[in-house]
C-alpha cells in the first residue's frame, strides 16, 4: 500500500519518468524543475538541466523560483546567456523540453498568447517566452496540462508554439528541424503520446482511478487510443521520499 500523494506530486512523478538518462532537458520553473531533480535522483543521474537564461549542469540544491535565478547556475558547469543556450538547442543538443499552455490541439500545438482575437483579446496570456523556442528546437517536448475540454480543443485560438502543426510532414515543410516534435502530454488524468503516422494525440496510460471515458469526456477533439492502455503507477514510496526530503524539503510545490 502506497502513501497518499497530492495531484502535483503525481504530475511530477509522471513527468520525471518520461526523461531518460544521459540526455539534456530544458527546464522551466515549477513542475519541470522538480521532475528533473527527481529523475536525477531516481533513474537519470546524467540528466543535464539547462535553463534558458544561461545555467547548464547546475547542482539543484535549492529549488529555483525563476528561470534566471541564482539557483539555476548553482555550482553549474557553465553560466552563459540566453543566446548560447538557445543556439545550443537550435544545434540539436537539447533532447527534452517542457511546455505548458492554456490550449492544446490534437497535433500538440499550444496556445499561451491570447484567448479570443489577437487585436482585441478576451484574455491576454503571458506570450511565448521560451516556449516557441523549446517547441521548435528540442527533439522531444513534454506538455504538462490540466485536462479539460476548454483546454484540449479541436481548434485553438492561437498557435504560439509548434506541435505537429497541421499533421504529418508539416513541421519539415515549415522549415522546422527534422525528427522533432511533441512526445508526451502529462495531465491530471493521463499520459498521452502521438500516433507515429497521423501525428495525432493518443491516450497511452491512465492515472490511478481514472477511466478512458473520463479522459474522452474532458478532451475536445477525437482522441486516439493505444492498443493497450495501461495504468500509471502511483508515486512510489521512494519517489515520494526523495521528492519530500531532498527535492522540495520546504514543500513549496506539495
Amino acid at each position: 500500500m502506497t502513501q497518499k500523494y497530492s495531484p502535483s506530486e503525481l504530475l511530477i512523478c509522471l513527468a520525471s519518468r518520461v526523461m531518460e538518462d544521459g540526455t539534456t532537458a530544458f527546464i522551466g520553473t515549477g513542475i519541470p524543475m522538480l521532475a528533473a531533480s527527481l529523475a536525477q535522483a531516481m533513474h537519470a543521474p546524467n540528466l543535464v538541466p539547462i535553463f534558458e537564461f544561461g545555467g547548464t549542469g547546475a547542482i539543484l540544491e535549492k529549488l529555483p523560483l525563476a528561470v534566471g535565478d541564482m539557483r539555476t547556475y548553482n555550482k553549474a558547469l557553465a553560466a552563459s546567456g540566453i543566446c548560447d543556450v538557445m543556439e545550443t538547442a537550435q544545434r540539436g543538443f537539447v533532447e527534452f523540453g517542457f511546455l505548458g499552455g492554456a490550449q492544446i490541439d490534437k497535433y500538440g500545438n499550444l496556445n499561451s498568447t491570447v484567448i479570443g482575437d489577437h487585436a482585441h483579446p478576451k484574455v491576454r496570456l503571458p506570450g511565448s517566452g521560451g516556449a516557441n523556442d523549446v517547441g521548435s528546437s528540442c527533439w522531444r517536448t513534454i506538455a504538462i496540462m490540466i485536462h479539460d475540454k476548454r483546454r484540449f480543443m479541436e481548434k485553438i485560438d492561437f498557435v504560439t508554439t509548434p506541435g505537429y502543426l497541421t499533421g504529418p510532414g508539416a513541421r519539415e515543410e515549415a522549415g522546422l528541424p527534422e525528427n522533432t516534435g511533441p512526445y508526451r502530454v502529462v495531465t491530471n488524468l493521463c499520459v498521452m503520446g502521438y500516433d507515429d503516422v497521423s501525428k495525432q494525440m493518443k491516450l497511452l496510460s491512465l492515472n490511478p482511478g481514472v477511466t478512458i471515458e473520463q479522459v474522452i469526456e474532458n478532451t475536445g477533439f477525437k482522441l486516439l487510443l493505444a492498443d493497450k492502455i495501461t495504468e500509471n503507477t502511483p508515486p512510489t514510496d521512494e519517489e515520494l521520499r526523495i521528492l519530500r526530503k531532498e527535492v522540495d524539503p520546504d514543500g513549496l510545490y506539495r
Partner: protein
Amino acid sequence: MVKNKSIPIFEEGEFPLIQPIDLDGFRAHNRKKTKALIDKRMTEKEAIEKFVKDGDYIGFELYGTVRCPMSLTRELVRSGKKDFRIVGQGVHELDLMFAANQVKEIDFTYISLEVYGISDNMRRRVESGDVTKIVEWSNAAITWRFKAASMGVPFIATRNMLGTDTLKKSSAKVIECPFTHQKIALLPALIVDTGFIHVNRADIHGNCQIDGISGFAFEMSRACKNLIISTEEIVDTKEIRKHPDRTIIPYYLVDAVIHAPYGSWPGEMSGMYERDEPHYKMFVDMQKTKESMDEYMQEWVYGLPDHKALLDKVGKKRLQDLTL
C-alpha cells in the same frame, strides 16, 4: 543581378516594425559617442532627463526579478515620460510601467510573474487597449534581434517561430535559404533608443562586469543607441584592467553610470543578495486590482524622491537579511 536568380519570400509577419532599422544612422550615432575615459557617473534622475524622451523605444535587462535596474525604473515612472515603445521581456520593471500607463507599443515575448501567475498590470493595459500595438516574438527571437543589431547587420536567421501564429503576428519574414533551399525565418535587427542594464560592478567610465549568467546583457548593450548602467559597486579602473576578459560591457557603449546598491531590489542580484520574497508576494497581491496597485505605486514609487529614500524605507535590517 545574377541571371534568373531570386529567393522567394514565403511569408511575412503582418506587423510593420515598431522600431524601423537604420543601420547607417546607428553607425553615425555610435561614431559620435565619446571614446575618451571620462567620468560618467550621475543620478538616476539626471540620466533619465538626459537620455530618455516621450515615445522612445526602450529596453531592460534581465528577466523576472533577476538583476533588474529597478532604481532606474522607479525614476522612469516618476519622470512621467510616456508613450514608450518597449521590448516586453517580462521583467518586473514593466509591471510598474504598465501601472503608470507609460507603454504604448510592445515587442512582446513573455510578460508574467512566473510561478506567481499572470501580470494583472499587463492584462489591464493590453485588454483595455491602452497598449495600441502588440507584436509577438519568442525569447530567443527577441534576443537574436538584439544580436543582429549588436553585429551591425539587418537580420539574423532562425529556424524557430516557423509555422506558427507567433510568426504571423510578428514582423519576421520567411524566405528560402539560398544555400540549403529550406525555409528559414529572418528576424529584423532591433536597435533600442535607450537601454537600462544593472550590473555587479563598473568603473566610472562604464566598463562593466557581471557575475553568473549574463542573460542578454552582451547583446542588448551593443544594440542600444544610449545605454544607462546602474551598478552595485563602483570599482577602480585598475581592477577592470586586471581582468579585461571579465569586461562584458566596455565603457564606450555606456552613456551614464549610476551607483545603485541594491539596485535590483525587490529582485535578486547574482552572488550579492536574494529576492525580497515577502515584499514581492505583497506586490503580487496588490497588483491584482488597479486600486491596490495604485496604493503600491504611491507608497513605493511616487511617494519616494529617490533610490536612497527607498533603501531607507526598506531598512538596513531587511537589506542585511537579504544579503548573501
